[in-house]
């Protein structure tokens, strides 16, 4: 049985922890709002880009000379997994759910005899994946020093990916990130970005407008596809960012609540023990008085 003093110390330490988690929750909530706004602000660009590309690619569907980024290399042997995770922990299952999805995917591909290459974005994912897929990791990008996530960062990742693609280092690229659904729900998602895929429904109505292309359709497509890779990555990074803060907020909320419960429990046993001690002392005094 811990002594009264021990209990008192423990209560104090849990209270201190509670204060920290509470503060972290508030910080996460504030950052979440900003991250959400950023994700929303980026939407118009991505949507328009998607619309334009969908109509262009529909027009180019049967074209044998279509750029490789659209039609693929024709092979399915080497896969590049781009795993985007957070830079920090303390966000509940955020990082691990992305990593788990990526790992399962990698293992499935390896079992099929395919070659797997991994590009990690974010420190957490790199730390964990390095343990099991050390020789598969081809590149690692971290945004630890970056305060405000901008298009420049996405461009950096896209640059690396395109460089590898142009060098013929892989055939298919899949992007792993957490899609932001709500504050309490973030879904780890795999999205294929090379060769590019577009929703067919959109293509149908977009191609109805008769466009003039300047320069040629082909050239525009060649110009836009690499850009699209960057835009997709940018969107994923923003979603990831919002998801991270959402996950962190709910994780810290839970932690604060748990700390509260812990404090209640400890206070109860503290009081009980104090009462027991008083009773014990009283018995001693009374029995001493009776003996006289």
């Amino acid at each position, binding site marked *: 049985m811990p002594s009264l003093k021990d209990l008192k110390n423990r209560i104090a330490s849990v209270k201190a922890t509670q204060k920290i988690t509470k503060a972290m929750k508030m910080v996460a909530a504030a950052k979440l709002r900003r991250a959400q706004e950023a994700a929303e602000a980026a939407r*118009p660009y991505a949507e328009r880009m998607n619309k334009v590309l969908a109509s262009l690619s529909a027009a180019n569907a049967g074209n044998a000379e279509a750029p490789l980024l659209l039609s693929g290399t024709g092979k399915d042997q080497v896969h590049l997994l781009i795993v985007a995770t957070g830079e920090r922990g303390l966000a509940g299952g955020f990082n691990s759910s992305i990593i788990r999805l990526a790992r399962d995917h990698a293992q499935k591909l390896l079992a099929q005899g395919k070659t797997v290459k991994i590009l990690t974005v974010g420190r957490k994912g790199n730390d964990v994946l390095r343990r099991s897929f050390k020789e598969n990791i081809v590149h690692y990008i971290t945004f630890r020093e970056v305060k405000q996530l901008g298009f420049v960062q996405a461009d950096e990742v896209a640059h690396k990916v395109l460089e590898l693609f142009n060098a013929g280092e892989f055939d298919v690229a899949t992007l792993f990130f957490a899609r932001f659904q709500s504050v309490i729900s973030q879904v780890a998602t795999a999205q294929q970005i090379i060769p590019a895929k577009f929703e067919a429904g959109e293509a149908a109505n977009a191609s109805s407008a008769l466009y003039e292309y300047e320069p040629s359709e082909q050239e*525009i497509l060649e110009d*836009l596809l690499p850009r699209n890779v960057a835009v997709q990555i940018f969107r994923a990074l923003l979603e990831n960012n919002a998801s991270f803060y959402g996950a962190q907020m709910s994780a810290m909320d839970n932690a604060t609540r748990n700390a509260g419960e812990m404090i209640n429990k400890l206070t109860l046993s503290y009081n009980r023990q104090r009462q027991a001690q008083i009773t014990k002392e009283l018995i001693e005094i009374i029995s001493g008085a009776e003996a006289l």
Partner: protein
Amino acid sequence: MADAFNFELVSPERLLVSEKATEVVIPATLGEMTVLANHAPTMTTIKPGVVSVKLASGQVNKYVVFGGFADILPTSCTLLAESAVPASEVTRDTLQKRIEATQAEINKAQSDEHKTKLEQFLAELTHLNGIVVPA
């Protein structure tokens, strides 16, 4: 009074401008073009340059864009720019930085094709440097 149409300038990070305009000058890859209302549907890529927008109110705003493309419809004109800044905020320093970054990339580039593209981009940037910022 010329007809007005919707003009939107969008960068990957946010929607910069969404207003009624009567006249927009775009630095298209194949040469500058002026867009008025009821333009034929056109899709064009743009090179680094100055976009000048004449709003319905008659006010003229200038923006510096660095590559991207434009989607022109009879009733609207959407400019998707890689990055865009109001011309008044562009300084020699920011341009110089971009020029240096491109230069560094040229030195790194492996394929000739890529190199040519970058060099062209560099030339456009340098040209821009001359127009935008008075020496």
